[in-house]
């Protein structure tokens, strides 16, 4: 048997005013999409920060005092850089109280890199004997140390295991690729041993058009892991106090700076989203007020046929929920599209790490977005629905004439 249902009536009512319904759908879609896109973007940055910081594994990074900004830029946005200091810094740092482990690294900006299209690669050389940042990954995934001209590459570089990469006249063999971290410092880097880096520098004088001058007395940074009963801040101060001309950057400091930036960004995005939301709430509220007003007679007729107040209330809310859910689904598509379209531009301009959140979190965010759009629709239609349900049938029929 054919049955007339309140939800069916609501759907037909929405179809009747197609343009208005489409505008309302678009409104919900834009608000939901903006909010979802922004939330996924912020989550992605937080995610990258969490994974990247974990992967960094160092509590303190010791760099030449004058290169502090470059070092931070290298860590956070993977900007290739070259700076050097004397190896004696490493010898001094490893003996400072509170330092559990220390390991030197070399940061080298390639003069030219023709293999990887427009991806900027960054050369990071580590000391296998003392390293605690790259070696754990090697042990877990490669199950053997790097030898000679072996390198491992970050996930963003378009090279595969077995490929050869030329740097400063030396060919390196790619023996593995790291999983994505969202931090360009890892994702766009080529990791090699310090011995290989020094040999490459020595060879560059005869084999490269753009030789580099690095001898074994030079390092770029010292990665430090602090003892359990010391805080990174305290050890950083001790290092700066004990060794001249260096800056000891606690990883907390880097992370908290990013967190501050993120918080500012979040406030901005939330402010815009809140404004959009209030506007959409008011517009939808006004639209539903109009819907109820122009259908007074019709609603009065339904009441005369025996519709209860709750059924009239449900009819209006049904229309709001239909608009909200459909608009919300469009919004999710819009949100993902906006994210894909502007992600790279935003990352580049913000200079912050980014890694798409995991599937579970994405599903949560998508459900959250639908719930948010439903709540918006319900809030916007609540007063008009209540007013519609309270109308006396005869008054509604008369006023609607």
């Amino acid at each position, binding site marked *: 048997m054919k049955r007339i*249902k309140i939800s069916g*009536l609501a759907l*037909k009512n929405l179809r009747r005013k197609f343009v208005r319904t489409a505008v309302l759908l678009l409104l919900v879609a834009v608000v939901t999409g903006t909010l979802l896109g922004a939330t996924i973007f912020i989550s992605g940055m937080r995610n990258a920060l969490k994974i990247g910081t974990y992967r960094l594994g160092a509590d303190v990074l010791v760099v030449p005092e004058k290169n502090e900004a470059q070092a931070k830029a290298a860590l956070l946005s993977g900007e290739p850089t070259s700076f050097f200091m004397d190896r004696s810094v490493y010898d001094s740092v490893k003996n400072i109280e509170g330092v559990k482990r220390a390991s030197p690294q070399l940061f080298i900006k390639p003069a030219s890199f023709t293999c990887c299209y427009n991806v900027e690669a960054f050369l990071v050389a580590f000391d296998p004997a003392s390293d605690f940042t790259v070696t754990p990954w090697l042990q877990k995934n490669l199950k053997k140390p790097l030898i000679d001209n072996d390198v491992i590459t970050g996930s963003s570089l378009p090279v595969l295991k077995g490929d050869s990469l030329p740097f400063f006249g030396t060919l390196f063999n790619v023996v593995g690729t790291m999983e994505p971290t969202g931090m360009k410092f890892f994702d766009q880097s080529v990791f090699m041993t310090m011995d290989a880096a020094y040999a490459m520098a020595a060879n560059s004088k005869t084999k490269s058009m753009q030789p580099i001058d690095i001898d074994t007395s030079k390092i770029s940074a010292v990665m430090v892991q602090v003892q359990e009963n010391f805080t990174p801040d305290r050890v950083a101060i001790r290092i700066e106090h004990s060794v001249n001309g260096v800056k000891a950057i606690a990883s907390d400091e880097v992370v908290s700076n990013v967190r501050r930036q993120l918080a500012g960004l979040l406030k901005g995005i939330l402010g815009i989203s809140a404004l959009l939301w209030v506007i959409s709430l008011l517009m939808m509220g006004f639209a539903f007020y109009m819907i109820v007003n122009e259908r007074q007679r019709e609603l009065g007729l339904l009441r*005369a046929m*025996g519709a209860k107040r*709750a*059924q009239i209330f449900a009819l209006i809310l049904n229309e709001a929920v239909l608009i909200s859910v459909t608009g919300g689904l469009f919004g999710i598509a819009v949100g993902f599209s906006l994210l894909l379209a502007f992600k790279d531009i935003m990352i580049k301009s913000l200079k912050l790490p980014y890694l798409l959140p995991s599937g579970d979190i994405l599903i949560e965010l998508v459900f959250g977005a639908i719930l948010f759009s439903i709540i918006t629709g319900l809030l916007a239609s609540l007063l008009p629905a209540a007013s519609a349900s309270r109308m006396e*049938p005869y008054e509604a029929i008369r006023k609607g004439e």
Partner: protein
Amino acid sequence: MIEVRHIIKSYTIDGQTLKAVDGVSFSIKKGEVLSIIGHSGSGKTTLLSLIGGLTRPDSGEVVIDGTNIWAMGDNSLSEFRNRKISFIYQFASLIPTLTALENIMLPTAFGHYGADTEQYARELLGLMGLENKTNSYPSHLSGGQQRRIAIARAFINRPEIVLADEPTGDLDEDTEEEVIRLFTSMNQDQQVTFIIVTHNRDIAAKTQRQLTMSNGVVSELVK
């Protein structure tokens, strides 16, 4: 049985209080057909709405089968309307987004109806001579056809009381005759009580009782 007891309904327009229905009392037996005649603005439609539970009186009672409907809660009154009362209006009262069949079945969305409802709706469409308009939308129907569908809808709940406000207003003579025949048949076969507000003295003459209404007051015409 319907008993209207000392019912008063007034409206305030531009600061002035006007009594649309002024202390009206009368009663109708089950299965009776009553017409109310009067000029525009005499309070006929308001009286019909008071009897049908659509607008609350300032004072007085409407007692149907022993129950004062204005003592009921809103939900009970809505259910009561859905089960026992139907209205026929003097204006086009179809929902534009529903087909003819759906419009007739619309009251069933608000109550519990049997599986034979659709069949009955189709029968009513047939009685109105509109069996070929089942899936037509109101915008594709003439004014007269729309009125006939609204009349068919008034019977879908097998009402005990039909309150009709100028039910044949814009129908041609033949259709008007058919509608009157339907009313008569419903009255005779199912003991449906009719209260018909009309300007048409010919229709009024065919009813068992006639009331005239003027300035909110009714008086009975003795045949």
